């Protein structure tokens, strides 16, 4: 028989200075008022978000106004209930849960029934491959390292396989849980550091203002789950550092190691980010230990668990996912080159919001949000220096978060480079955690000590930062539906491309090696179940498209295609009529001229109609599929002159 013992008052709950016991009747009345107001606000907000999507679909231009009205109509009352001094702990948990649910709604409405963002196709494919073949760690043709990090797609495949829901609904199951975990996790971490439920709620709201929160970290992508694991690993780490010596500390250390392992099996960058945060914590703990402020056990626990996480990360990247370094390295190297270029000649930079259809107020808010973040961090640093509160672990955590939050600003340099922008956006999800955790007490202090209107000013700042960061993090084609746009990851998928991929799969089977452009490759590689390649420096398949009619194709490329058993070529003729929205035809470092005119002529793309080594088996106007017949090529001669076969 299992014995039970009543729980002791937890140390965190016991020390909540700004959460005095609220009388039961007042508490109940507040809960009813809160529930009523948020249900009404949530309903109105959801209706406005639907209206925003409708406006975007019909291109009325009102989508931005509807969207932000919908978001703010729920968010602002939710923030009010969270920061209100009289709100109880359970009410705050309930509001945070509702907040997590509501903030998932924009992404849910954007992609209700299938993958749409670039990485979503890769994960969707990977989950389906697991369900079909029952194997992990299969290479993914869309994002080549995705298969090495099976945390997310194996969870989704398991949910789908065990319950019978579709892969997409299985993904939503996991992602909504992960989103809720992020929200509750930031609150729990803030409570570990500040021991104040109100500060914890404010920290969660501030974190939710980061540019990735609404769209990027809610997508079917490995970071969406990994960020949640990172936050909860830090919660467990803080409890391990604080815990009494012996079994309890050992137990929390085991939880920390298990969650670190889950993080590395889910996403490379988040695992490296976690390691970075842990190292910052260790550095702060060591500096304080050297000044004899920190108990030794705290520092040793931090170092021990960081070493364990480092071993896991290094071992995983070296043994299980050795391709990761090669995958990440070019992005970093190019970004550094471009920064050097900007410093030297001013070249290599990108213009923010270039050709963006975002309204002027979103763009101004994007710049304003950075200003507010800078001011808030400076104030938080000043306050941390002046007020040395909390125990050793809390102080450690706060200082480490200050360092982490400060890293947000150097990333702004990377956002100005084409190659660094993607990486910069990803780091913001980590560094904003630091900002949220050190700025939250400043906000509560302002609310308590400031004038009566300070609440209104802070709500306005919150609205500006939410609008600005979201605008800076995601371009409108990711946020809203709309008419088809060639060269957009989210809008170039027209029914014609899906029909072509379905035809190829039904008549020729799956797992065929095909040559394609980036956008066709997404559809053929996911729904079509094929193995598309879109070109690289060592395998420049884009040369097939670039070759002028009547000119020879490189024999080396033909040899590669032939020996690696590539059998099909997909040609999207929109490449000759339109300029891709994101300025990429095949991959980021393609040797294709980019200007305001299409890089291809129709002749370049229809030349395969007249080369005997390409049999045109499918044509729907924009999309043509050719089967390679390399045996028709005479040795040493890669192409025949147009029309010769017809004579």
């Amino acid at each position, binding site marked *: 028989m299992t014995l039970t013992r009543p729980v002791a008052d937890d140390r965190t709950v016991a020390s909540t200075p700004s959460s005095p016991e609220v009388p039961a009747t007042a508490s109940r009345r507040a809960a009813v008022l809160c529930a009523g107001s948020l249900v009404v606000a949530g309903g109105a907000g959801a209706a406005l978000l639907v209206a925003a999507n409708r406006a975007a679909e019909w291109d009325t231009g009102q989508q931005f106004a509807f969207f932000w009205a919908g978001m703010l109509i729920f968010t602002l009352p939710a923030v009010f209930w969270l920061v209100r001094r009289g709100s109880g702990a359970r009410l705050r948990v309930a509001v945070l849960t509702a907040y997590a649910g509501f903030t998932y709604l924009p992404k849910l409405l954007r992609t209700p029934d299938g993958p749409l963002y670039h990485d979503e196709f890769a994960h969707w494919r990977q989950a389906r491959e697991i369900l079909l073949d029952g194997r992990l760690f299969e290479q993914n043709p869309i994002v080549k390292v995705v298969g090495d990090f099976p945390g997310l797609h194996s969870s989704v495949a398991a949910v789908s396989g065990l319950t019978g829901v579709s892969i997409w609904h299985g993904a939503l199951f996991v992602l909504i849980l992960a989103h809720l975990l992020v929200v509750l996790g930031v609150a729990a971490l803030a409570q570990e550091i500040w021991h104040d439920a109100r500060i914890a709620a404010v920290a969660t709201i501030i974190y939710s203002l980061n540019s990735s929160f609404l769209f990027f970290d809610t997508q079917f992508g490995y970071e969406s789950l990994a960020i949640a694991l990172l936050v909860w690993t830090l919660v467990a780490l803080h409890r391990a550092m604080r815990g009494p010596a012996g079994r309890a500390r050992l137990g929390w250390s085991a939880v920390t190691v298990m*969650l670190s392992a889950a993080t590395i099996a889910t996403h490379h960058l988040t695992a490296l980010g976690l390691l970075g945060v842990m190292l910052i914590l260790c550095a702060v703990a060591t500096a304080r230990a050297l000044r004899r402020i920190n108990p030794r056990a705290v520092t040793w626990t931090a170092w021990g668990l960081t070493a364990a996480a480092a071993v896991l990360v290094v071992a995983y990247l070296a043994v299980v996912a050795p391709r990761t370094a090669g995958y990440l390295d070019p992005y970093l190297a190019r970004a550094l080159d471009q920064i050097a270029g900007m410093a030297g000649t001013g070249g290599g930079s990108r213009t923010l919001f270039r050709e963006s259809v975002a309204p002027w107020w979103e763009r101004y808010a994007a710049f304003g949000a950075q200003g507010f973040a800078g001011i808030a961090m400076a104030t938080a640093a000043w306050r941390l220096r002046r007020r040395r509160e909390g125990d050793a672990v809390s102080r450690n955590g706060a200082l480490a978060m200050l360092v982490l939050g400060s890293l947000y600003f150097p990333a702004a340099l990377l956002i100005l480079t084409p190659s660094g922008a993607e990486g910069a956006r990803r780091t913001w999800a980590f560094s904003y955690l630091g900002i949220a955790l050190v700025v939250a007490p400043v906000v509560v202090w302002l609310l308590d000590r400031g004038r009566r209107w300070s609440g209104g000013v802070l709500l306005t700042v919150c609205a500006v930062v939410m609008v600005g960061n979201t605008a800076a993090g995601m371009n409108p084609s990711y946020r809203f539906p709309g008419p088809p746009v060639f060269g957009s990851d989210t809008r170039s998928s*027209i029914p014609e491309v899906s029909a072509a991929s379905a035809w190829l799969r039904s008549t020729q089977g799956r797992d065929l090696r095909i040559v394609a452009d980036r956008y066709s490759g997404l559809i053929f590689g996911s729904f079509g179940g094929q193995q598309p390649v879109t070109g690289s420096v060592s395998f420049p398949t884009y040369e097939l498209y670039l070759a002028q009619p009547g000119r020879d194709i490189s024999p080396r490329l033909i040899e590669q295609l032939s020996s690696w058993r590539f059998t099909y070529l997909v040609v999207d003729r929109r490449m000759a009529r339109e300029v891709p929205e994101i300025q990429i035809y095949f991959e980021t470092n393609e040797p294709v001229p980019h200007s305001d005119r299409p890089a291809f002529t129709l002749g370049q793309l229809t030349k395969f109609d007249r080369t005997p080594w390409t049999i045109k088996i499918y044509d729907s106007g924009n999309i043509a599929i050719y089967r390679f017949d390399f045996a028709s090529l005479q040795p040493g001669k890669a192409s025949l002159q147009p029309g010769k076969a017809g004579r």
Partner: protein
Amino acid sequence: MTTVRLLAGICAALVVLSLGHRLPWLFAIVLLTALLALGELWLRALTGEAMPAIVRIGLATACGLVSLPLVAIGLHVAGVEIRPRAIVAGLGILVTVLGVIVLLRERAAGSPVDPRLPHTLVAVAVPGLLTLVAGFVALQAYGRLPHPPQPGYTSLALNGWATDIARPVAIPARGVHVPVRVSSAGMPTATQPLRVRVGTRLVSGRPLTVEPDATRSVDVFVPAPPDGCLHRIEISLGATSTVFYGRGPVVRGRPAC
């Protein structure tokens, strides 16, 4: 909840999940409950101490969720294919191991019972359910509203035996019937010329009516090319076409290509 009841609940959920899925969303709720309970088991096995309700709920959810990839990776290492029943078996083994650890630990110290936990669980579950309902209603409303039409297309593809054409076709003197697949979506009814060209020579042409949102197979007669040389053969319907290569019968007295 006592550990024995927790174990019994997880085992019952795993049995239900192994029965096959007839009610997907009900099974999703069963799976969620099982994962939360499994996460709670992880916490009891590893920490065995009291913690704030929000931390317990969050960590239990995280630990339960990561059990799925943990089991999947375990199956992969053991060389077992990842199938629903194998996952259920893997989860069963995990539950057994954790259950034994927890029961051994609790023989000495008992398990912490947090009276705040049920209320906090309700505080998470109720708004969670409400936002799910709001999301579902919003999706239904959005789905039912009229949407702009998607761009249409007409496609032409080789069909039947012709889908396997991988090299030049040897066409007999009597010619050959090539099946093609004509498909249309989102386009009005249209009549377009169906033409056959051998080399640069137009050998046949007739109008073909393409019905909207329909797929049909059409046999197209391709006459034999004049000689055994390689000839380009194009079947076109309006602006779309298929192209393959063929050789006619070798005629005595004519020079080889």
